[in-house]
């Protein structure tokens, strides 16, 4: 006899409260086509520093805490009709490592 008839499993887990010691962060550089005025937009893009280049692109750079934050920013870029040129991620302390954002892992 089945003793544990329970209702359907929903699969949603509770996010744990953020740990007080700051998790390892990753430095990102996002390049988009079109200039972005820092005074107008820096808050919208999570406080990333904005630098406009003479080739008509703009670079957003700074720290993100994790994948979710990065994707949130990328979605905002997408939703404003800005074309993505490139995304680079560098681990803290490393020489520049190019390529797709790998996730926050401390490698020591």
């Amino acid at each position, binding site marked *: *006899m089945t*003793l544990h008839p*329970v209702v359907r499993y929903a699969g*949603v887990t*509770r996010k744990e409260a953020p740990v007080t010691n700051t998790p390892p962060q990753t430095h990102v550089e996002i390049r988009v086509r079109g200039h*972005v005025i820092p005074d107008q937009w820096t*808050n919208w893009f999570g406080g990333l520093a904005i630098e406009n280049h003479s080739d008509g692109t703009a670079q957003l750079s700074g720290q993100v805490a994790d994948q979710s934050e990065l994707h949130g920013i990328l979605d905002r870029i997408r*939703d404003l*009709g*800005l074309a993505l040129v490139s995304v680079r991620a560098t681990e803290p302390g490393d020489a520049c490592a190019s390529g797709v954002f790998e996730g926050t892992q401390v490698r020591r």
Partner: protein
Amino acid sequence: MTTPLLTTKLFVPARRANRVPRPQLVERLDDGLRLDRRLTLISAPAGFGKTMLLSEWAVEAGRPIAWLNLDEGDNDPARFWVYVIGALRTVKPDFGEAALQAIQSPQAPALNALLIHLINEVAAVDQAVMLVLDDYHEITVPVIHEGVSFLLEHCPPQFHLAIATRADPPLQLARLRALGQMTEIRQADLRMSRAEVRSFLERTMGLQLAATDVAALGRRTEGWVAGLQLAALVLQGVAAAQGPDEITRLVADLTGTDRFVLDYLAEEVLRRQTEEDQHFLIHTSILDRLCGSLCDAVLDSDRAGLGREMLEKLEAANLFIVPLDHQRRWYRYHRLFADFLRSRLQQNHPERIPGLHCRAAAWYEITGQIAAAVEHALAGRDLSLAADLIERATQPALMQGEVDTLLHWIARLPDALVRSRPGLSICYAEALVVACQLDGVERYLDDAERGIDPHSASPAARRTLGQIAAMRAYLAFFTGDAAQADELSHRADALLAAEDPFLRSITKWLIGLTQTLGGNATLAQVSLAESVRLSQAGGGPLAGILSIYVYAYVEFLRGHPKQAERMYRQGEQLALASCAGPAPPALALIYQGLGDVLREWNDLEQAESCLERSVELAQQWGNAEVLVDTYALMARVKQAQGHSDQADQAIRRAWQFIEDGRVAQMTGRLVEAYWTRLRVAQGDIDGALPWAQAEMSQAQGGGWTTLFLHWIERATLVRLLVAQGRCGAALEMAEGLLKSAEAGDWMGIVIELLTLQSLALYGLGNADAALTALQRALRLGCAEGYVRVFVDCGAPVAGLLREMLQRPAGDGALRSYARSLLAALSPAERTELPHLPAPAGALPEPLSERESEVLGLIAAGLTNREISERLFIAYSTVKTHVNSIYRKLEVSSRVQAVTRATELDLV
């Protein structure tokens, strides 16, 4: 009671004055329909005119359109499908009635069952139907994608799905593309051509522009629709106020700057509005939907009606505001524009944002739209308001199956807050239980309890205490603590005395269950019957089905399979009558129980089909516990049918769940027991041994709870001992169990134990006692049609039955019963000699008394010399005895003799 749907989400957008006509694209879409393709996919970033294109097509499509605007909140599967049905109902008013009821319940059917039901209903509609899902990129939850994929794969030809999205959805697009089942419109298709730009600016927007300017605009915006619409807006204003030179200057500015297009143009648009209008736009940008009085509330404006005036004005000016209904009550901003406005707000007045959200939350609360109020309260970080609202929203959400939404909301509150509010802790605990995440529940129940006076007489406090007790009872039960479960469920029952039937029906079920475990079957059946009554009196089918399941199983164990079958059928009726749509998954339990009874009656084909139905429902339910038991039963059926391979297959399936850690430990033990039985039935004794050794060490202890839970394992152990020929040990164990079973009136269990007892006695050479026991078992089983309990023992029982028939005594009914049982055995089992490997009593040549004595001393480690001294016999006599012993035991050394003797229970 269900929350009404937001009709604004179902509103088909009207064609706008500033739309871009796209006849070629519309033709492509029509072609897709003509070719009976299943999917139209329009995938491009924001502002490319996806919705515009779809609404243009919708007007001319020649078939009814069901439209659904998706947003982030639709990531709750229950909510998503409720809205899909809602959209289809705008086309066919009574569509999906049964399915709707089924989803909006605490135990919703599994999605596949639901979808099949819906697909059938669509097929029954003989007109062609199109479902449009706008903003599909908002959906991120895999289970919804799976459902939509399923829909796409199985929908009838008259159904067409159109999806507008900013990112390609994970819906097996490659396959659809390859099969030519998809019409695709992408960014490149949606870019406006030079001719289209010209036509739009000059004809649609009535601008008079130099050819170079048109070309420049086209280049700068790269044909981006939103960009051109914004540009047109600015230029119209400029043309009206300032004339053609200004236009050229503006175009030059736009093309000269590197600022991204939206930023430049939206800024221009905004700049040209009055201060009051700018204020309005920026501060209402936090709202997903706007209506006059909501805007008034958010802006805290002192003039009533201002909001409504503004919205109408904005719509007239084509300022990227979109109506969401025919009455012009609700609007929303075009997402691009809203994002731009929000960025202004965040940049210039970030400190105002929480206040705006809180005012919105208050407005939604007053108008009774709790879900929206929660979202704004969370966004405004007014956590105590959010907590209050969530507490209010919990019951409706749970009753409507929207547990995912609830969990997401609570996850956004700090844990400390949740734990400090008893009401909220309870809500969270309830949601966790419903979502089957039992690990964290205890903590929240503790927190909730701490905050309440246990002697309070207030109805609210009593209800909360009752809920806590009910959940604790459930947890206690889950961990096997029957005493706790019993006490707690009684307490819950007392506290919940006048409450809603659902909770009470569940509590009664829990009481009945714990009483069953406690061995008190009579009392249990009273409680369970009460649960069924409450269930039928508005508590919903769940508790009723669960109670019937336990009740019937108890009947079965008490030796009344016929009554059990009647009850299972009653349960089936209850479940099927509860809604016209897909059956509640708990029906899987009923079919499992029914399958077990039919198996016992040797009605193997029927049993199999019942069990298959149970598996199907349980798989949809996603309930591993039920599946494991059902697979184990299926294995027994297969073995009985003689299909050993399939039996192994079935038990391995059950095993997989255990290895994956998806079931309770208790269930694991049960499957191990069934697996062992299978090995014994297949003659593979060695394979069964490891389990037996582990089980033996746990086989001590009596008590009702243990018997009820573990009799299958104990009985299996006895079976194995008999199969090994260790009949002494088997007998001892069987007799111990029999005492317990008889005392508890578990006659069904008694029948099995008597049968095993008889086999053990037979193995020890005591045929008379064996027959007495067997006849008693037969007498008990005869009237109720028991078959497998005897027949599963295989050849040994055949031997006994034949012996019984050889003797002249015994009544006719019993003899014919015995004959029918013999007939039910397989030919091999019938004719095979009893397979008991050298049962002790049946040694071809039994040991004499003296030889037994000597053997005993050998086992005690004495030498022949020591034996001769101990028994006062000659040394040579001892040696004679020893040789005789070796011969009879078929061994050739002392060590072997001792081993053999132990095996045969001779020492």
